[in-house]
């Protein structure tokens, strides 16, 4: 039985006067969060930022004048949600995809070019060592190429059977499975190569060298049987894309490792998160490349048995990638976003 004598506290009045606004904001927010922004009326769209600011100012008044914890907690969580909904809103998926292909991806590749060279050097170094060692003593092959991967392709196999592997199309059955498997396997290796860069580059370098040794061992084995040219075609049809992608994943890993080990003028954490953004972009691209590589390896290589055609496709893909990534162009047409984020990094 509330009596008339009851004094209403100022903080209570404050709350009662604004309660409706807060509830409205809450309702609008749940619609926005559920992705139903389009269903909001124009009036509601205009009200949203106004209500957000009003609630924000209510929060700061409440913090200064109210001792009701529940109101402050409520306003804090409400404004935080509103803040993320209003300032964190993303541009549409379509625009983001366009921006990724026209600008973000090639620009990230250009930022990574030094690391890409380093990564390629490690891989090639591994390949050369593997090649030379296996040429001199085929037994090395067993140390470089894991048994599961080698299958029948070992120094013990006859030249004839080694040759048949290159042109055997497995009866063109199960190519879809093969392509899907290759894609998912390679993508995981690439993601691992990238993620390991976090530990100051070292595991990434090891992984690159090991991949190189495997590749070199393979080449050495085939070259020692005079099948070098044929293997080149077999490898290059998908390998130019796949190996390039792995080099890029390694580069992204090196970039991050470098940013953590030598942050330069930035703080270590800032430097890491800047590198992570670029690396993340690069990796999204790597996955796309590996998807193509999977198709080329699963279908193209199995269905095309002519050496020069394999070479032509491989080199063609390589030149497309190189042109796409490295031809200098003016990215500033799509600017704004990148620039602001770069400034805030400093």
């Amino acid at each position: 039985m509330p009596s008339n004598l009851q004094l209403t506290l100022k903080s209570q009045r404050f709350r009662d006067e604004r309660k409706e606004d807060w509830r409205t904001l809450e309702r609008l927010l749940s619609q926005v969060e559920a992705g139903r922004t389009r269903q909001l009326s124009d009036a509601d769209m205009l009200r949203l930022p106004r209500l957000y600011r009003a609630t924000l100012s209510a929060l700061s008044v409440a913090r200064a004048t109210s001792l009701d914890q529940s109101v402050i907690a409520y306003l804090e969580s409400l404004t935080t949600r509103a803040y993320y909904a209003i300032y964190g809103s993303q541009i549409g998926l379509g625009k983001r995809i366009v921006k990724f292909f026209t600008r973000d991806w090639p620009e990230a590749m250009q930022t990574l070019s030094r690391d890409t060279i380093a990564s390629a050097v490690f891989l090639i170094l591994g390949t050369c060592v593997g090649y030379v060692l296996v040429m001199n003593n085929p037994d090395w092959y067993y140390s470089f190429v894991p048994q599961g991967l080698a299958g029948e392709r070992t120094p013990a196999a006859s030249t004839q059977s080694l040759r048949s592997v290159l042109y055997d199309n497995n009866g063109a059955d199960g190519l879809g499975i093969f392509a899907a498997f290759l894609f998912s396997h390679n993508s995981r290796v690439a993601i691992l190569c990238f993620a390991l860069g976090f530990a100051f580059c070292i595991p990434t370098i090891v992984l690159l060298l090991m991949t190189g040794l495997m590749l070199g061992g393979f080449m050495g084995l085939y070259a020692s049987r005079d099948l070098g040219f044929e293997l080149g075609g077999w490898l290059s049809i998908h390998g130019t894309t796949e190996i390039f992608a792995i080099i890029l994943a390694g580069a992204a890993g090196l970039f991050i490792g470098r940013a953590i080990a030598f942050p330069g003028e930035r703080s270590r954490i800032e430097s890491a998160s800047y590198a992570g953004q670029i690396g993340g972009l690069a990796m999204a691209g790597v996955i796309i490349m590996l998807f193509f590589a999977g198709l080329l390896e699963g279908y193209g290589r199995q269905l095309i048995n002519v050496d020069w055609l394999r070479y032509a496709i491989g080199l063609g893909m390589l030149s497309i990638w190189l042109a796409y990534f490295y031809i200098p162009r003016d990215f500033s047409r799509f600017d704004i976003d990148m620039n602001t984020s770069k400034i805030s990094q400093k």
Partner: protein
Amino acid sequence: MNRNFSDIDRRSLVTPEGIDLRVKLADIGARIGAMTLDLLIIIAMFFAVVFALIYLGINTGAGEAAIALMILFAFFLRSFYFMFFEMGRRAATPGKRIMKIRVAARGKPRLSANAVFARNALREIEFFLPLGFLASAGSAGVDGWMSALGLIWSCIFLFFPLFNKDRLRAGDLIAGTWVVQTPRPILAQDLASADIIGRDRFAFTPQQIEAYGVKELHVLEDVLRAKDSETLKDVAARIRKKIGWVQSGAEADIDFLSAYYGALRGRLETKLLLGVRRRDKFDKR
């Protein structure tokens, strides 16, 4: 009651309007809970789709396509489940939504897709790598030892969030993100407007009201909201003793406490308007 003591979880987040929202970091329990839920969902989805594909594959004879789809689906589920949901509007996987937490960019309002990608790519070494080592750690000989060493090494990443104050995963560190709480805002009833039986009877003297400060007021608020009769009785007895209040026969503890809460809050808020925040009962202002 821990609301009073949880300030170590708070991080400053200043809006463009210049107000610090003081976001709360998600605690480790919620993060582990969310991850567990997500894994359960992933496993359930995986089996559901696998059985559906097997069923379709057998019935339509398109076994090859079914297997290829299965491999792709498994890969996408493992690598992109987290990314897909965290790139969404709520920046949270279903598990995170249930635990009422979300991913947010540190110091920036917008969580970019690249950040989400980088954050989740690192899951591969934080979670799946230890899992892989764990699976092979049982094998005998040198391989087993190598796996054990690998497991120890990769556990550094797994337990990374426990060893830094912002509870960042390695992925969060790289991506410039962190995980914050987003509780559903619930506007609880204002205790000062509670219906009190016999309000007129509770007329406190200024000395009686002056007995406590803000800290005690907040504890009292928590007690009143929890409504645990034992605690209410205890607290009421203690306050009565402290302020020298004689309990009349019909006076219920909760009414007494609510009335005292209203009076105390009114008093302290008036002081607050004059610029004095009396922290606790030892603060002589």
